[in-house]
């Protein structure tokens, strides 16, 4: 999960990593303190990037100015549902650089670029990339840039924070190189959700304000330990065709085929592994609850070990209850496929649903073409 800047800065402070002084967070206009020492830097709390360029960061000299910044930023960034604003003291002058730790395909990596504060992809200067040994949790070489900016102690502290907190990304941009210390002016922290079991005590503001109602329900189901098995994904899109897909690779093929065939997906949803029937039922209910859909495609490859009877039983239960009146096409194979098909087709007969179960001899692309014809 992404961490809001004011909370990320508090985590850094726990590791004696310098951030600007007098950090305050105001969740509403009424919360704004009248006792701030001006000037301050004010920032709108959103999770997407390029905030500065869009007027989300400003130097403020009075209470009145801060209140009007709050109003302006709330309006400009309304679609991103800001959490509030933060204020902090201006840092002493100095050179700004880019500093991050993340993972690439082989392991953790430290990246330093001497042009800080800007989009790193747009930087004309080459980045220094130093692999980190995940076992010793130390950088594998000491490039000149580290001694030049006196970053050895700073790097050690950031590495400790990165690994102890199980970060997936810790990006400090800009990092202000001051006279005697480096100060993190802005921080983007993404925590590794998979390591959540090591941080159960952690209490951070949930960063799901931008999810749709249905996406929120899915997120809650995935984090509920009563729903066992692999997580299900649900992303809402603008289109009018409902999808319930299985398998990462198969879902891509199906998406390609539908989009190329002119269909407009109303969602992207996918499950793999062996989710329980209760979880698949919950996912199906979320998909079926989206209004104005023209049809439903339930499709995936020929599974190796996902139990088709178990997953289809979950789907059938939701279909029997909601009774959608649009065409439904299913293309799925794998363990206990015959029982799965029977469960679905019995449900179709009993509730008079328009369901076609295609044989696995039809390729995924052919199944998509069949589905698109059915929608006409």
């Amino acid at each position, binding site marked *: 999960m992404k961490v809001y800047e004011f909370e990320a800065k508090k985590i850094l402070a726990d590791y004696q990593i310098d951030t600007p002084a007098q950090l305050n967070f105001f969740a509403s206009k009424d919360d704004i303190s009248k006792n701030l020492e001006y000037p301050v830097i004010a920032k709108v709390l959103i999770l997407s990037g390029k905030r500065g360029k869009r007027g989300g960061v400003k130097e403020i000299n009075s209470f009145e100015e801060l209140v009007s910044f709050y109003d302006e930023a709330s309006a400009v960034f309304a679609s991103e549902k800001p959490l509030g604003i933060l204020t902090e003291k201006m840092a002493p002058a100095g050179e700004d650089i880019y500093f991050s730790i993340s*993972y690439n*395909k*082989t*392991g*953790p990596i430290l990246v330093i670029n001497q042009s800080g504060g800007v989009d790193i992809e747009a930087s004309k200067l080459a980045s220094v990339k130093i692999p980190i*040994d*995940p*076992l010793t949790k130390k950088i594998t070489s000491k490039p000149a840039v580290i001694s030049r900016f006196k970053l050895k102690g700073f790097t050690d502290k950031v590495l400790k924070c990165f*690994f102890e907190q*199980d970060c*997936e990304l810790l990006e400090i941009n800009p990092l202000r190189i001051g006279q005697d210390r480096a100060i993190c002016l802005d921080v983007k922290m993404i925590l*590794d959700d*998979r*390591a959540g*079991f*090591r941080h159960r005590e952690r209490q951070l503001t949930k960063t799901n304000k931008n999810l749709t109602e249905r996406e929120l329900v899915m997120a809650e189901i995935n984090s509920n330990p009563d729903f066992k098995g*692999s997580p299900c*994904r649900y*992303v809402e*899109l603008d289109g009018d065709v409902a999808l319930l897909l*299985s*398998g*990462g*690779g*198969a*879902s*891509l*093929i199906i*998406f*390609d085929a*539908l*989009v*190329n065939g002119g269909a407009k*997906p109303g969602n*992207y949803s996918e499950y*793999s*592994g*062996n989710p329980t029937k209760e979880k698949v039922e919950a996912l199906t209910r979320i998909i079926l609850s989206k209004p104005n859909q023209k049809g439903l495609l339930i499709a*995936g*490859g*020929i*599974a*190796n*070990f*996902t139990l088709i009877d178990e997953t289809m039983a979950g789907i059938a239960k939701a279909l029997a209850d909601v009774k959608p009146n649009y065409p439904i096409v299913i293309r799925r*194979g*794998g*363990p*206990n496929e015959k029982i799965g098909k029977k469960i679905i087709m019995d449900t179709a007969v009993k509730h008079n649903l328009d369901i076609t179960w295609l044989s*696995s*001899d039809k*390729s*995924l*692309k052919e199944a998509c073409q069949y589905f698109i014809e059915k929608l006409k």
Partner: protein
Amino acid sequence: MLSEFKTNAKILVQGATGREGQRAIEFMKNYGTNVVAGVTPGKGGQEVLGVPIFNSIKEALGKVGPVDAVSTYVPPPACLSAIKEVIESEIPFIHLITDGVPYQDLASMVKLCRDNNVQFLGPGSLGVLTIGQGRVGFLGGTDPKKDYQAGEVSIISRSGGMTNEVAHYLNQYGIGLRTMIHLGSDKISGANVGEAINALSQDKQTKIIVVFEEIVNNDLSDLAEFFSKQKLNKPVIISLTGISRNIMPEGVSFGHVDALLKGDSNLLNKNIGRIKSAGVVTVDSYEDFVPAIKNLSTY
């Protein structure tokens, strides 16, 4: 083990008494795999489908002798210590099915395996299967004996479902199979497509290699680099899937875990060009494997 699953290779199963571990033993045994031992701490002395269970790998090896590979079915928090135990036992091959292992632990496992010369298939891999010789993991589904005919085409994929799907499709068109490898698709992985191609290049009975590859947030730089250095000793055909990525909102995970939407189309096209110029055949969809294979002079 990646070049072929050798007949009678001895397999030890970690996490053998859990739901997936027990099913895996059933799947492997029904395809003739020689599963010699299972390990679950605290469950020593039990049996799963006739396979003896031990409390530790050390204890197991003391009883059954050396094994060729370990197939692991333990939950994410236990994976790193499980892999360490395999490495300490000097077993040359690890297959890990588990998904959702913390990145920090994954990076440590990959490094440990590399430092100790242990081949690491996974995480999130359904395994390897060589037709008529056996399999490690679930790859090939319930009844590969019925579903697949032997032949000369080997399949590599980062998608488990698609490994099986491609196998079915080729089979439907009368194309026989040799070995199927599912690499898994995590952001940090053990064996990659290049390593798998290298391994299959060593196998005399593999005459053609097909690769199912995804191009969502994968600019193919690694593969382009691999093919520009590697001389191929047999035809390689790659299908590239995921062109519809453009309609997804930014930052959404699409396809597999590592498939965050953020791609550089120019770089991708350049790399596809490099791959083609190395003599690799690229196709848009896995259905096109069939005509591409039939077009090869070696087929």
